[in-house]
């Protein structure tokens, strides 16, 4: 049953109730009828048995000389029972002897001869426990005839002297003397029964209707409390978490109400947390890029009499990398927090301050023109100059460069405005840092901005339309020459068919906040590729690069685990690579994420190791499976002894730390052989294998040094 296209619970329950009741009622009626029939038949049978027994006694015509007295006794007897139509007696050969009818008005009965079959059947009943044949069934119990054999018996001649009354019948002989046929008519009795059954059925139907009506009423009353929940639940679904639920009288409904209230509370708390996470930078508590863009859109859409809607500031700290490298990244983070507080204090209620990532901040100040904007920029610069951050008893002064652009209605998109401010900021840096520059439309700047915005659009399109490509570059185990795994590399196919590497678009992707989506695309498509190619290469393992944005995900390991489960990939088939720069910048966060990934079963490689020379101190804090030696040490390895010493040192450090080393940028056989000599475990580069569209297992000739080392090990074992 439906109501407005939807099924109605109360109607379904009622229908079910009616159906069950109808079935039970039908069964009850059928049972009543058949049970009544059965009881009747049993009773008829019992009465008939009694009558037959008594008629045996009265059946004297068969063993007593026929006489008027016997007939009169018979008539008197059957007159007492209207159900007995007549009684007939047959001789032993089945021929009729006599009959007595019940009704005085009935014509004299002349019983027909018994058939041979009936004769034979009834004869077999002599001496039986139920010595009668009843010609009726459950379907027809109104009129039937009972046939019974009548016989005499005697005890054996000498039987009475050792007579045991408790033993079985010890009669010596039984002699059939005739048959008795009792014709019974229970029509009137049966009609009375049917009449009573009909009355019972009628009463049952009335009871069913009444119980159905009462059941409907009680159901409606019971379910009304559920219906009352509809409105507040709908409100809750709309996001109104302050909705109030009416207290319920029933315990079950009350429990649901309590659960809904708890849900609303939990949803409110989670919404608040998500909102905070979605809109704020976790380090500084400032708005993040997404929220900043929302604010920018709001400002752009707001009606204003002035042409200038406000100003957008792009703030980049000068020489912040120096602080990171010299004082450490935690110190850098603390400095960022100090700068954020200072910016917030400086801007105050005038505008909104956001952190775009790293040492980049953005400020949106509505309702200001160029002059006021410049005043504010100068104020910020002055505040920054005054800022003294103390770190380990060292006073750190940090300056900033500011790019400013004026927001005018309908002139530029949000992305354009951010790009303009960024360009202006870069101009300030180019002009000596610690200064503010207004965005000016020069030809070169216009081209740069257009390029950045163009990349942003292209990347957005690539994400939405799957225009990225994956390439697989093998990593080979130097000692065995066997392929260990493939590094998955990201490529973008341009409109002209050219395929470009990430160097071309990563900067724009980071600038426009697309790295998180690119990371997700990368993980999912790399795993899909694993599913696609593992049939041909059951041992296939892939290394996936992750950006800083990926590690900003709260539960990266959980996300990865879900993706792996979805594709039935065991975690040990996947290696994640993170850059040394990323690892040391977000040390504590990365440490936790890396530990979670490794605990799950994935392997993690530290990429570009040695590039920043700053990671040696952190190698003890972070546990990786692989260290990928930066290509700058490998490029001239064969000719440069310093590089050789560096590589040997990194290999030794890796061994000591229980990590395997991978050399990148291996482009020649001598370099490959030398790496073996230097103790590096794996190699990657054009010599080992170029990036290819389909991962393919390959085997390289084993480097000589590796063989020698093996021999030496064997010799030592032999000794």
């Amino acid at each position, binding site marked *: 049953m439906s109501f407005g296209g939807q099924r109605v619970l109360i109607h379904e329950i009622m229908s079910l109730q009616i159906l069950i009741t109808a079935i039970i009622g039908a069964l009850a009626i059928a049972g009543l009828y058949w049970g009544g029939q059965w009881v009747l038949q049993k009773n008829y049978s019992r009465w008939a048995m009694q009558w037959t027994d008594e008629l*045996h*006694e009265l059946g*004297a015509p068969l*063993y*007593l000389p026929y006489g008027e007295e016997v007939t009169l006794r018979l008539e008197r007897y059957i007159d007492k029972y209207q159900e007995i139509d007549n009684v007939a007696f047959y001789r032993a050969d089945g021929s009729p002897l006599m009959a007595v009818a019940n009704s005085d008005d009935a014509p004299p009965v002349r019983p027909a001869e018994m058939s041979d079959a009936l004769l034979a059947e009834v004869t077999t009943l002599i001496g039986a426990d139920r010595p009668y044949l009843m010609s009726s069934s459950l379907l027809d119990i109104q009129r039937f005839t009972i046939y019974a054999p*009548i016989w*005499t*018996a*005697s*005890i*054996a*001649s*000498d*039987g*009475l*002297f*050792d*007579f*045991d*009354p*408790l033993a079985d*019948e*010890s*009669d*010596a002989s039984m*002699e059939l*003397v005739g048959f008795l046929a009792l014709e019974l008519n229970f029509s009137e009795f049966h009609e009375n029964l049917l009449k009573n059954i009909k009355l019972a059925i009628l009463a049952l139907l009335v009871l069913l209707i009444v119980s159905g009506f009462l059941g409907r009423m009680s159901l409606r009353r019971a379910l009304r409390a559920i219906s009352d929940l509809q409105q507040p639940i709908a409100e809750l679904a709309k996001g109104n978490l302050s909705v109030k639920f009416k207290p319920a009288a029933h315990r079950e409904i009350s429990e649901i109400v309590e659960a809904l209230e708890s849900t609303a509370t939990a949803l409110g708390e989670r919404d608040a947390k998500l909102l905070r996470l979605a809109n704020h930078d976790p380090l500084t508590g400032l708005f993040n890029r997404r929220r900043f863009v929302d604010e920018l859109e709001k400002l752009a859409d707001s009606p204003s009499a002035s042409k200038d809607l406000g100003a957008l500031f792009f703030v980049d700290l000068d020489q912040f990398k120096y602080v990171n490298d010299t004082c450490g990244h935690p110190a850098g983070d603390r400095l960022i927090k100090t700068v954020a507080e200072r910016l917030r204090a400086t801007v105050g209620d005038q505008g909104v301050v956001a952190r775009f990532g790293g040492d980049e901040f953005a400020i949106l100040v509505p309702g200001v023109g160029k002059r006021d904007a410049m005043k504010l920029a100068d104020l910020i610069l002055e505040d920054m100059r005054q800022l003294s951050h103390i770190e380990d008893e060292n006073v750190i002064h940090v300056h900033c460069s500011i790019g400013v652009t004026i927001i005018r209605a309908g002139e530029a998109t949000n992305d354009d405005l951010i790009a303009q401010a960024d360009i202006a900021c870069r101009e300030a840096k180019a002009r000596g840092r610690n200064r503010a520059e207004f965005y000016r439309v020069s030809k070169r700047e216009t081209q740069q901005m257009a390029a950045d915005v163009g990349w942003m659009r292209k990347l957005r399109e690539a994400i939405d339309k799957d225009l990225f490509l994956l390439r697989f570059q093998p990593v080979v185990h130097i000692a065995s020459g066997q392929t260990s795994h493939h590094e998955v590399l990201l490529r973008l196919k341009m409109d002209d068919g050219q395929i470009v590497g990430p160097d071309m678009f990563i900067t724009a992707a980071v600038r426009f906040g697309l790295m998180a989506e690119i990371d997700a695309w990368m993980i999912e498509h790399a795993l899909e590729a694993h599913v696609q190619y593992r049939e041909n290469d059951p041992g296939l393992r892939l290394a996936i690069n992750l950006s800083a944005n990926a590690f900003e995900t709260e539960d990266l390991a959980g996300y990865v685990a879900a993706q792996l489960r979805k594709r039935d990939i065991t975690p040990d088939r996947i290696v994640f690579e993170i850059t040394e720069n990323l690892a040391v910048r977000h040390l504590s966060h990365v440490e936790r994420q890396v530990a979670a990934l490794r605990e799950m079963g994935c392997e993690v490689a530290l990429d570009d190791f040695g590039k920043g020379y700053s990671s040696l101190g952190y190698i003890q804090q972070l546990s990786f499976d692989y260290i990928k030696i930066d290509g700058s040490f490998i490029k001239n390895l064969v000719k440069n002894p310093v590089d050789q010493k560096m590589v040997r040192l990194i290999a030794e450090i890796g061994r000591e730390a229980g990590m395997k080393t991978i050399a990148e940028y291996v482009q020649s056989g001598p370099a490959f052989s030398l790496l073996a000599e230097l103790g590096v475990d794996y190699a990657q580069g054009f010599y080992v294998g170029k990036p290819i569209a389909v991962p393919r297992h390959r085997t390289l000739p084993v480097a000589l040094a590796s063989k020698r080392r093996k021999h030496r090990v064997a010799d030592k074992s032999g000794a």
Partner: protein
Amino acid sequence: MSVTSHSQPKLARLLVCSLLALTAGCSTLFPEQTPEEPVVVPRLPPDLKPPPRPVEPPPPAPAPVPVPQEIEPEPAPEPIEGSKIAVLLSDRTPAFENVANALAAKLGQVDIYDLSDKSLTPKETVDSIRMTGIEVVVAIGYRAASMAASFESTPVIVSQVFNVGEIDFSAGNVKGVSVLPPLDLQVEAWRAMNPNLTSIGAILGTGHEQLIEEATRAAAERDIRFQYRLAQSDRETLYLFTRLVPDIDGFWLFPDNRILSTSILKQLLTYASRHRVQVAVFNDSLLSLGATISTTSVDANVADTIVTVANRLLEGDGQEVPSVTPLSEMEVRTSRSPVEQVASEGGDTTEGAH
């Protein structure tokens, strides 16, 4: 308990009454003793005169014949010296075998043949008896009696057969010993147990006119009305019984196997119990079905009677020996409940026990 007295019949009658009263009283005091120990009732010395011939048709109520009371009891028969007696049994039924054993105990030398012995056919058994040159054949049981009737010159004594009328006695060499204890003693015992007994009924097959006459006389002597019916089948017996019940307060069941079946016997006793009609039976086992009193013969008395008849036959006095010689003793058992019932109905049986 067995009491035998041939010299003081009055005392014996008194003893019967006392014992019956005592047993009724004891049964009240010790109800677990059910049925009671049998009481052996001595009989008056057997009347060796031939009983009156059956009258056709039997008179409804023959004049009571007084039981001779002053006749000196006959001494116990002595074993037949040097005579060879063969005992032919229908089967090893205790009622037959006990009589044979009693006979053997009395005579010391008896050849016992058993028709149920499968090693010989009945004819071979009879032939082997002929070949041994025996002088008297005692046939115990109806089947044995039927077979022994073929002995033409050898005296045959039939015992433990109720329907003796079906056996040919015309040859003169066949004589019978009654299967039932004396009827007057039975009535006496019954009356002692139930002084209110006023009307007795019986149903018999044909050929028992002498029995009917004797029973009528025994009842009449005690102011008891005796009525009987003749039946031809078990159903007719039941039919007649149900119609007889309203007119009687005691039913005398005789061992006429021709008109009794197990089923009818049970129905009859149930019906009698339901209608408070006491039933005197010939077999102790029927007491458990509701019979009131059971009177049976004493094996030693039967054996004595057989020896007496045999002696007379061997002495050539066969013409004087009645076709069926009555017994003189009986054993009585009663069921507890009818006795209690009688006592509760105001009978003086209980008082007699005191």
